[in-house]
């Protein structure tokens, strides 16, 4: 005695968002049924396990059939098999491409290759995200990466156009793609305290200011890579630390501005040359791919950690970086104003984002 076949098909495809989430989270049908039975939301329907099982099976089948279309979201809009209202289509796509930040944090900066895919079980164990879900998220990263990698024009918009995602989600994907492409080091122990959101913010800054597309909108070039020329020019900033007079002048200007305004003034005064040197060194080394990858670890080791050990507050740091940047303009001999602004603007916002416990 058993139900051999049990299907329900609506002219308008019925999608239960809760079940969709359970499916996306990688739960098996029986798990999903159990969780739905336990949830309060359905208690008023007095649905039996049998009814829920049948419903869950229908939903899961629908999702499986839709999955092929979700891989290319623009297809969902002009396919004929499922009649899904537009706002539900948007929901399906958005949810399918949403990812766990803890998971993304683990994959960030790694090569989106088969090798990494093999490590997914470890990541699943570590993050508590079900393996199935990890695979979906990883495949999404890979798919998005593959499509936008070769495309010209702004990265975020490319992601949005091809995958019909919301602005914020497209930005997150842009960050993932950007990190994967430049292979930034994010896995070091010292970087562990940084969240996906921290990195995503930094990626946004880098994409907005340091790539080719950032300076010239008309340039039909890729947004995924940092501008080579800019990185090369950064060497010129060395003058700020190599020229002793300039360094001293810079320091005195900053100190003058900050006196009485920050708590860690004495520490700043003592450390100014080291800090400045650290920032300029990072800049000058960025021509080297290896050093580009180490951008974040360098920022933490060379700048953030010293500040932290001196117990700078965020306010202190903000003031310091603001004036550190602005006073350079008043240096007579300093000719690289635009370059300096472009570099420090990003560095400042990245550091401030990264400066927390």
């Amino acid at each position: 005695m058993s139900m051999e076949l049990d299907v329900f098909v609506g002219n308008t495809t019925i999608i239960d968002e809760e079940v969709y989430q359970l499916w996306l989270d990688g739960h098996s049908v029986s798990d999903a049924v159990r969780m739905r039975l336990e949830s309060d939301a359905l208690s008023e329907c007095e649905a039996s396990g049998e009814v829920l099982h049948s419903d869950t099976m229908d939903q899961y089948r629908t999702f499986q059939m839709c999955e092929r279309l979700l891989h290319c979201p623009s297809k969902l809009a002009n396919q004929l098999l499922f009649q899904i209202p537009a706002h539900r289509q948007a929901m399906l796509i958005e949810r399918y491409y949403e990812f766990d930040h803890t998971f993304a944090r683990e994959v960030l900066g790694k090569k989106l290759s088969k090798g990494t895919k093999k490590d997914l079980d470890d990541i699943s164990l570590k993050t508590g995200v079900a393996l199935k879900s990890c695979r979906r998220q990883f495949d999404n990263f890979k798919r998005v990466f593959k499509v936008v990698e070769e495309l010209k024009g702004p990265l975020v918009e490319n992601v949005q156009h091809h995958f019909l995602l919301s602005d914020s989600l497209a930005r997150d994907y842009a960050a993932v793609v950007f990190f994967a492409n430049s292979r930034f080091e994010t896995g070091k122990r010292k970087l562990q305290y940084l969240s996906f959101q921290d990195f995503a913010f930094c990626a946004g800054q880098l994409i907005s200011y340091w790539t080719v597309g950032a300076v010239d909108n008309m340039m039909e070039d890729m947004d995924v890579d940092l501008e080579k020329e800019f990185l090369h020019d950064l060497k010129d900033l060395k003058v700020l630390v190599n020229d002793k007079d300039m360094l001293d002048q810079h320091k005195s200007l900053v100190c003058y501005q900050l006196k009485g305004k920050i708590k860690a003034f004495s520490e700043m005064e003592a450390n100014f040359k080291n800090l400045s040197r650290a920032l300029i060194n990072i800049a000058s080394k960025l021509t080297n791919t290896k050093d580009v990858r180490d951008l974040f670890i360098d920022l933490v080791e060379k700048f953030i950690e010293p500040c932290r050990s001196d117990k700078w507050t965020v306010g202190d740091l903000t003031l310091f970086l603001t004036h550190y940047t602005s006073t350079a303009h008043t240096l007579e001999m300093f000719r690289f104003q635009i370059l300096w602004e472009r570099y420090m603007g990003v560095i400042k916002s990245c550091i401030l984002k990264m400066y927390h416990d």
Partner: protein
Amino acid sequence: MPGKLKAKIVAGRHLPVMDRASDLTDAFVEVKFGNTTFKTDVYPKSLNPQWNSEWFKFEVDDEDLQDEPLQITVLDHDTYSANDAIGKVYIDIDPLLSSEAATVISGWFPIYDTIHGIRGEINVLVKVELFNDLNRFRQSSCGVKFFCTTSIPRCYRAVMVHGFVEELVVNEDPEYQWIDRIRTPRASNEARQRLISLMSGELQRKIGLKVLEMGGNAVVGYLQCFDLEGESGLVVRAIGTACTLDKLSNTYTPATAINPCNSSPSKDIKDSPQAVPSALGCRSTHSSPVHSASSRLSQGFSVSVPTLLFAGMGSGGSAGKEAGPLKALLRQQTQTALEQREFPFFTLTSFPPGFLLHVGGVVSARSVKLLDRIHNPDEPETRDAWWEEIRQEIKSHAKALGCHAVVGYSESTSICEEVCILSASGTAAILSSRFMQDSALDTEHRFEDLMSPGCAFCHIPYDELNMPFPAQLTYCHCCRRYKVPDVLFTTIDLPTEANVTGKGCLIQARLCRTKKKAQGEGNATAISNLLPFLEYELHTQLMNKLKLRSMNALFGLRIQISVGENMLLGLASATGVYLTALPSPGGIQIAGKTPSDITYEQHISNMQKKINDTIAKNKELYEINPPDLVEEVIGSPIPEPRQRSRLFRSHSESSDEVSELDLSHGKKDAFVLEIDDTDAVEDIHSLLTDAPTPPGFYSCNTEIMPGIYNWTSALQMFTSVRVFRLSNVNLTNQGLNKVFNDLCENLLKSLYFKLRSMVPCCLCHVNFTVAVPEDELIQVAVTAVAMSFDKDQTQENGRQSIDKNLMKAITENEDQLQFPLELSAESSSNPLNSAKGLSEVSGPLPSARAPSVDYSSFTDRCSSWIEQLRLKAHTIRCGSIKTMSSLEKASPLPEGRSRSLRSNRSYAGSSVTVVKMTPLSFIPGTKIIKYLGIINMFFIRETTSLREEGGVSGFLHSFIAEVFAMVRAHVAALGGNAVVSYNMKECVFMENPNKNQAQCLINVSGDAVIFVRESELEATPPQPHSASAQTSSSGEGT
């Protein structure tokens, strides 16, 4: 050379990868009609080919145009080996042959393969140029319109209803031809699909010819079925009602002819004795089965099964006494008009006002045949004779009920191996001659008087001394003048003018009976011996359940009997209602046979209590509060109703006490259930195991639910299929019953759960079909539509929307004419002043419009960002998107209309038209402005990788979704945005899990239409050109 068919292949998209090496496809298209084939060029290395072909022209007879489908095959070119077929599209060009339907077929069609399902889409343009044909002896019947809708289609009026048309064609089933052993499953499936398409075309053409012969121009209630007889052949048969229809050029100004009832309802009925003509009663009874004992064994084997008449009625004797001579004459006329017809049958289930005078009861006939005894299986004669026999029987049953016509007529079969059960059923009725050919009298005036009030159709006119079987009669609770039966069963929809108390509900009787496996005649005899019992028990169950819900009438009764190797399944579905005119049903009283044991008595009293509780609960649930007598008297527009009724009683032979007792709603007539054996206990249990519908849900199997009027536009049509395997072979009848009952109940429960987001909502037109596909399998398929309604709106408002929907043209006029009269005459607006009958239906303020509908509900509510994105992202668009934009541009209509277009096309970037599907003949809150033609599609899907496709459920799930998609695509290509009267007539599922194989056949039908929102219609001035604008613009859209 009466016609030229032109086809153009525009483009393809989402094609499958056919060349693994390049991950691409070299696609080309073959376009075939009849024996002519054209080919497009090969479009190399693309999954989105742009053929943009020339116009392929086929010069053909219109006979072929009707029979043949246009066959489009998409192939992958292969230099070295044979070209691989990607899939096919069959396009029925019949809609293009009628001047009033579609003018062009243009759009994306899913490319369908019987093994792989849908594989991409193809954009096609098809046009037809017809030349005038002066040949009188032509074989074609181009121009005859077909409608699946079982009522007069919304934008037409009936000039004449000619009557029954039927046809049947037979062919060898390709699946059983010798060649099938050597050809691929794909070739075999395609041969079958093509054959059925051809046969349907031929059938339609032949029926069209009959219609033309009768002088009609349309077939309404067209029902086409397939019988897969196996070895003996494949039968396609169809029945319908021939009509002459007139298109209402503007639905706002109905022709006067349709409105003979304009001024009458405010007149007091007593002035015109013929106003309530020979009322027919119907008495549901199982105590007197009417046998038709003709067991002919002439050709092969045939058993005519004793048939139960679910209702009885006498000749119109007593009515004749009261009615004037005019009425008698009229009746005679109608009778003769009908008698000239071989079968006075009508497949309609709802009727133009004034057409249906009286409803008798349900008449049905069944007969068991042996398919292997057909002498020449390839000829239709034998089957024709079988159906002839059945129809004769139905006709004689109707006659026995004193009725001259059968309405709500349908036919069906159930086949198991070589045994075939033929069934026919309908409702015996008396019709007005108004729409009949032979009515010679000038009808205009007479029918004004004849407009029947809401209770007339259930009046019993018959001579109580001469009743065919015992019936409990009472005076009509509405008018108190004529007698009515205590219970009424019918196969039709609830007449719009009927007075109903409370709401209705779906009532099902389910039964399973084991049968010994047998062969040939023995088997047939065994089945025919079982059938009467099955019907009897189904009837008892229906009756009990009706009483339990405190209701007194069933509409839309459909009894399906399905035969398997070792069991018979019976499923009766109907919508129960409380007709105000009929007496309140008594309760159910349980009586024990042996009242000796105390525990036994206690048991019985417990059960009695449970039953009483359920009845009370149901009364509350369905809002059945039969009007209090006193109130009724006060509100009644007929002065001194009691006196009047007494007066009438003295005229007729009825006994005084009956009416006295019944008027008091006494418990005296309680229905007694005797518990004398286990069967009875089982009956009672099954009574009480039916779970009530969850709060917020209603269900019915008729078009509309009495008591609910304020529908919103939220609509969800669905199909659900379940197959249950009985692993325990030695099941008893009780065990089987329980399994079957649970299967249906659980299915309903699941439906309620799935549709919970639509609450408050009603499942309408719930259509169950059962089958026994294999030894231990029970298959149940349900197709229905869930419609949300607005709880907060007042009844008054709601009433109106139903008017809008159902009475259409008539009410528009009536409102204006009648309302002032109504106001002055009976401003108390007592809902029970039902003697006037129409007052409730036609009374609403003309100014108050139907509730405005939130049509933006879901399609429009897409977030803006994604809309913009799509605009940007979708740069490559072809074919239909161009059509869309040109549609919008070309549309000369004001804001309201173009808004609807946009809402249908969901958003600018998407090229997929939203197509609504519903088994009903209308969509609430909308007006159908054009019928584009009939949709009649037959698909086969087969798989040899069942597990890989997600097992049987995965397989069927995707197949049903594909069928929906193909129906929608065809409708959209015709320029439509909805399918009404949608019906899944066949879903034959076969599996062989061991071989990892499964096969399924699905046959669907419906009417493709264009609808517009009523709210938008009102925003724009009524414009006669709205329909033509739509056509022309969609025509231009290329």
